């Protein structure tokens, strides 16, 4: 669910607690772990003056707080929208805490509006400049019914079994909802 630090940050819109998100580098010699190998290799590279390794992670937090007036008006999630979301996502969060958390999460994401995206095409896959591989039309898989059926708790004669839905206004809600309790 929504992570604790997101909730904390959205409350204050201040830079995150140093332990959250941004790696801070330990002091040179006093953080060699018990196993020894990985950390010492890493600190060795840090100390080497002609090391080609260059961390993309900033050495200090680079956040700047985003002022409230830079953000669009806060979104309120109406009870109707809560119902619709509960139905689509099969999640129970229709209590004050749940709605609060959702609105805070939206507020946190509102910070994206500060970025100017004029003339920039949205990216929907990091693979956008890769070639889509096309496979030959041959049979290479299947014939593992037993293996797959073993994964299910309850099967009937080589069929998987699904329970009927509780909301029987339309028979398409064929699965149960998961309840979601959020602790902030």
């Amino acid at each position, binding site marked *: 669910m929504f992570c604790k630090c997101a909730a904390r940050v959205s409350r204050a819109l201040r830079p995150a607690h140093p332990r959250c998100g941004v790696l801070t580098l330990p002091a040179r010699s006093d953080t060699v772990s018990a196993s020894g190998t990985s950390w010492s290799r890493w600190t060795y590279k840090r100390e080497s003056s002609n090391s080609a390794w260059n961390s993309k992670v900033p050495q200090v937090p680079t956040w700047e707080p985003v002022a409230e007036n830079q953000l669009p008006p806060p979104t309120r999630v109406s009870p109707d929208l809560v119902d619709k979301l509960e139905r*689509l996502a099969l999640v129970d969060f229709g209590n004050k805490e749940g709605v609060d958390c959702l609105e805070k999460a939206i507020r946190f994401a509102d910070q994206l509006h500060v970025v100017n995206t004029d003339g920039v095409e949205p990216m929907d*896959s990091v693979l*956008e400049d890769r*070639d889509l591989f096309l496979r*030959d*039309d041959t049979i290479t898989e*299947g014939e593992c019914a037993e293996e797959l059926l073993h994964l299910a708790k309850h099967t009937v004669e080589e*069929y*998987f079994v699904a*329970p009927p839905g509780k909301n029987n206004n339309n028979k398409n809600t064929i699965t149960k909802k998961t309840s979601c309790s959020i602790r902030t």
Partner: protein
Amino acid sequence: MVGVVGLEIHAQIQSTSKLFSGSHVRFLAPPNSLVSHFDASLPGTLPVLNRRCVEAAVLTGLALNCTINKKSLFDRKHYFYADMPAGYQITQQRVPIAVDGILVYSHFEGRKRNQVVTKSVKIKQIQLEQDSGKSLHDDERSQTLIDLNRAGVGLMELVMEPEMCCGEEAAAAVRELQLILQALGTCQANMAEGQLRVDANVSVHRPGEPLGVRTEVKNINSVRHLAKAIDYEIQRQMEVLQSGGTVLNETRAFDSKSGFMPEPNLPPLFVYESEASVPGGVDPAQAVVIDRLSTQLPELPSVKRTRLVETHGILQEHSFTLVVFQEMWKAPEKKVGQIVKEQDLWMINDKEELQKICQRVVDSHPEEVQIIRRGNKKVLNKLMGEVQRETKGRTDPVKVRAILEKMVS
């Protein structure tokens, strides 16, 4: 008041393996035997696109005069249903592989039904998408049995503009589409076997006024039923409106436009105009080239009919009947009577033979018989479909239904 009909057609791609996995595509097989780890949505599995399915979509788009999108994208459509284990279907909602086509079809008018009228319907788009598994509802034990053999099979969804007015036009359009798909080899288009699924969006209105509320007509397994069901629905809506009521739209929750997101595991799909336009870095064996596929297009039914009329001087309405006898094209010197006898196309009217065939089907489908006996009469349609399949459509559905109903009760 007139009817307005728009069709959404799902055509199962005739390929050896599925759209995104290497499991076999086959109609009859033991439950869950044609299912790979990806089809079962096991974590860590990824979709790998089948080139044959892309070619099938391009061929179909070309035959229907579509613009082929050189770049198309895949999306996820999320909804919950037991026969779709991933919780989403991979489809092409934003930018499909083909758009803006035309299906030209003809039907017979006039009292003697011998006047051929040519019509056309615009095709909004053709998109590649996954089929779902099959669910068998066992109402008695309140459970649903799931068979994933069909999950992940490639489909071409053809969306037509709502330009038809009645069941007859819809039926004629679907029949022509079946012939085209069969000629292309991209889909066997047998409605009884679920290879071609037609959903009709039906509404009524007075010409000039805004369109009325749409309802969907679904789960039809023959062209004849489709025409009847559409006409029945048009009639029903007209009666509702004429008596002052309103038409209720019972669209399912997951038909809303929400629940879409781009498919992050698949880069954009590129197809190329000609060999020359394939960029240097692309493996030629990988590339789907439109020009190359164009040369593979067979003679389409409409062209065949025109050729028949012009070459042999037959009546236009007879050319329709003849095109259906595909044997003609393999051996043009054969006579019709000879072909009908060889292909065994005469109707089966012998009552004993019909009984035998029906008994065979009933005996080989004990599960379905149980379900019918428990009250789900709709499954009788499946048995009827089996009889039609076995007899290659040479039986009178009314007679068959009567016999099956007696046998099952």
